[in-house]
C-alpha cells in the first residue's frame, strides 16, 4: 500500500513538473505545440522512415514531438496514450497496431480534451468522435494508379502477371481491387497469372520464376505488377536469371516507393512505382495547427497522395531517400 502511495505521489510530482515546464515553454516561445506520437515499432524500413519523417516535419514547424515505441504491442500503445494524457500534451498521434480495442483509452483522451490523430491505419469504433482525423493512404487508389500507368504505357494491351501480398491482408486485397478496376476497363489488358509472394523478396522471386516458365519462358508476359516493391525486386532477379531484360522485355510496376526500387529504376530494370508516402505526420501537423488556430475541425479522413514515380527522376529520388529509410 505505502509503496503504491510513494509511486503515485512521485508520478503526480513528475506530472506537475512536466506540466510546469510545458507551461514555461508555452510562455517562452509563443505557443510551442507538444505532440505525443505512439509509433508501432520498427518492423520495416518504411516504418523507420515514417518515424524519421515525423521528427523532421515536427522540427520544420517548431513542434515538440515525443515518440513512444510500442514494440508491436497494443498494451504499450495504450500505456503511452495514458502517459501522454497525464503529461497534458496538445495532441496525440497513434499509428495503431491493431484496429480494435481503442475505445476506452481514446475516451480518456477525449475527456482530457486532447485531439487524437490516427496515422497510416484506421481503427474500428462505433464512436468516430473519439478521434479528430485519420491520415492514411488509399490502398485501392494505389492499385488504380499503377494500373492506369500500365494501361497508358502499353496502349491498353498487356498480359500481366500479378504478385499479390499476403493472402487476406488488407493492402493485398485493396491493391488487387484497384488494379482489377483498370483491367476491367481495358479489354486488351488481362491478368494471366496471379499468386501470393507474401510481400517478401524471396517469395517474389520464386513465384516469378514459375510464372516465367508457365508463360512460355516469359515470352507471354508483357508486365509484372507487384503489390510491393520488395516482391518486384525479387521478380527482377528472376527475370534476369531467365535471360530476359526486366524493364524492357517484361515491364515492372509496383507500389511503396522504397529506395531499392528507385535504384532498380535508375538502372533501367523497373518502370514505375506508386509511393506510399512515409510522410503521414506532415498533413496531421497541418490539420492540427489549423484546428488550434481557428478551431476548424479537419475532415475525418485525410488521404495522402499516391504519387507515381518513373525512371527519369529515379536517381535523384534514390539519393533523397536512401538515408531516410
Amino acid at each position: 500500500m505505502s509503496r503504491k502511495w510513494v509511486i503515485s505521489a512521485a508520478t503526480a510530482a513528475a506530472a506537475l513538473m512536466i506540466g510546469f515546464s510545458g507551461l514555461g515553454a508555452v510562455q517562452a516561445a509563443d505557443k510551442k505545440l507538444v505532440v505525443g506520437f505512439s509509433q508501432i515499432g520498427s518492423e520495416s524500413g518504411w516504418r523507420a522512415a515514417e518515424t524519421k519523417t515525423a521528427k523532421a516535419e515536427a522540427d520544420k514547424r517548431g513542434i515538440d514531438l515525443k515518440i513512444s515505441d510500442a514494440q508491436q504491442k497494443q498494451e504499450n500503445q495504450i500505456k503511452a496514450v495514458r502517459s501522454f494524457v497525464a503529461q497534458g500534451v496538445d495532441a496525440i498521434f497513434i499509428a495503431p497496431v491493431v484496429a480494435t480495442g481503442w475505445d476506452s483509452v481514446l475516451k480518456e483522451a477525449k475527456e482530457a480534451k486532447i485531439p487524437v490523430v490516427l496515422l497510416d491505419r484506421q481503427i474500428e469504433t462505433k464512436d468516430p468522435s473519439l478521434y479528430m482525423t485519420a491520415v492514411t493512404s488509399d490502398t485501392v487508389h494505389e492499385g488504380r494508379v499503377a494500373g492506369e500507368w500500365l494501361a497508358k504505357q502499353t496502349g491498353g494491351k498487356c498480359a500481366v502477371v500479378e504478385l499479390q501480398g499476403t493472402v487476406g491482408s488488407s493492402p493485398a486485397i485493396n491493391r488487387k481491387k484497384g488494379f482489377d478496376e483498370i483491367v476491367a476497363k481495358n479489354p486488351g489488358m488481362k491478368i494471366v497469372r496471379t499468386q501470393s509472394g507474401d510481400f517478401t523478396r524471396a517469395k517474389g522471386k520464386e513465384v516469378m520464376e514459375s510464372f516465367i516458365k508457365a508463360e512460355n519462358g516469359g515470352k507471354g508476359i508483357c508486365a509484372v505488377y507487384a503489390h510491393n516493391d520488395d516482391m518486384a525486386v525479387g521478380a527482377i532477379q528472376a527475370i534476369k536469371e531467365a535471360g530476359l531484360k526486366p524493364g524492357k522485355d517484361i515491364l515492372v510496376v509496383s507500389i511503396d516507393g522504397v529506395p531499392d526500387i528507385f535504384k532498380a529504376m535508375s538502372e533501367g530494370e523497373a518502370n514505375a512505382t506508386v509511393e506510399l508516402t512515409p510522410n503521414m505526420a506532415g498533413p496531421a501537423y497541418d490539420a492540427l495547427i489549423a484546428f488550434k488556430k481557428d478551431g476548424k475541425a479537419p475532415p475525418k479522413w485525410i488521404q495522402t497522395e499516391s504519387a507515381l514515380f518513373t525512371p527519369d527522376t529515379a536517381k535523384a529520388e534514390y539519393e533523397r531517400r536512401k538515408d531516410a529509410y
Partner: protein
Amino acid sequence: MTLSAPGPARNLPQYGALIAVLLANWLLFPDFFAIRLQDGRLFGSLIDVLNRGAPVALLAVGMTMVIATRGVDLSVGAVMAISGAIAATMTGAGWSLPAVLAASLAAGLLCGLWNGVLVAVLRIQPIIATLILMVAGRGIAQLVTEGQIVTFTSPALAFIGSGSFLTVPMPVVLTIVLLAVTALLVRATALGLMIEAVGINRLSSAGAGVNTPVVLVAVYVWCGLCAAVAGLIVTADIRGADANNAGLWLELDAILAVVVGGTSLLGGRFGLVLSVVGALIIQSMNTGILLSGFKPEFNLIVKAGVLLVVLLLQSPTLTLFLPRPRGARPIGTVKPPVAPTSGGAKP
C-alpha cells in the same frame, strides 16, 4: 544394410509420393520436365524444385540427426536469419568472402552449441530449449541488420545463391555435398549408431558407454551449421538479408520433411536421404501450385491434403489394411487404400 529400413517397401510411400506429385505437376503443366541451359546454368521447373527445395532440404539433414536423438530444433529458421544477416552486413562493410563465410558459419555453430548445451548439459527439454533461440534469434538478426533489408552487390557472395557448378545451381551442389558429408559421418562411423542409441534410450546408451552429452551437442551443432548454410543460400539468392522473413516458419517445413521422410519423432531410426526426399515432396507441391494457376487461397489446402495422404500411407494402423504382396521380399507398390474386392468393371 545400415540404412536400417526393414525392406525396400518401407521407402515406397516417400518415393511413390514424390513421383506422384511430380507426375501431377507434369499433367498440370506439360513442360514441367523440360530443361535447358540458360547462361551456363540448368533452367527448368524441375531445377526450380531442386533449387528452391535446397534450404529446407539442408535444414532437414540437420534436423534428422536432432530428431533421431528424440529432440527437435525449432531455432533453425532464426539461425538462417542470423547467418544471412551477418553475411550481408559484413559484405556491405567490405569484408572478403572467406571472412564473411567463416563468420556466418561460426554463428551457426555457436547457435547449435548453445542449443546443445541447454539440451545435453542443462537437460532442458529440446522443444523449450530451442524455442528460446527461435524467438531471440530473429531479434538478434534484426539487431545485426538494424531492422532493414541489408542488400549487397558482391558477385562472390551472390554466386552461392545464383551461381552454378558444372551447370548445377550452387544451392543444389551445396545440399548434395552436405548430405554426402553427413551420411559419411554417421554411416561410415559408429556415430549414427550412437545417435540412434541415444534416441531410443539415453540412460541405457550412457550405461553402454556412449558419451551422450557429446553426441547430443554434436547433433545440435551440426544442425546449426546446416541452418547457417541454408541462411547463406537464401541471402545470396535475393542479394539481401531480410531478417524479418528469412527462414520464417521453415523450421516447421524441415520437421515436416523429416516426418514425411519416415523418421519417427520418438527418436531412434532415421533416414537422411528420405528426409531430403520429404523436402523435395514439399517443394514439388509448392512449385506445382505456382505453375498450376490455382488461386493463392488454395495453396495451403492443397499442400495439407497431399501431406495428409503421404502421412496416412505411413500410418501403422492404416497400412495393416493395405494389400501387401506375399513373400519374403515385398517389392510391390503400396497403393492408396483400394477396396479389397476389386470388381466394379465399367460398362
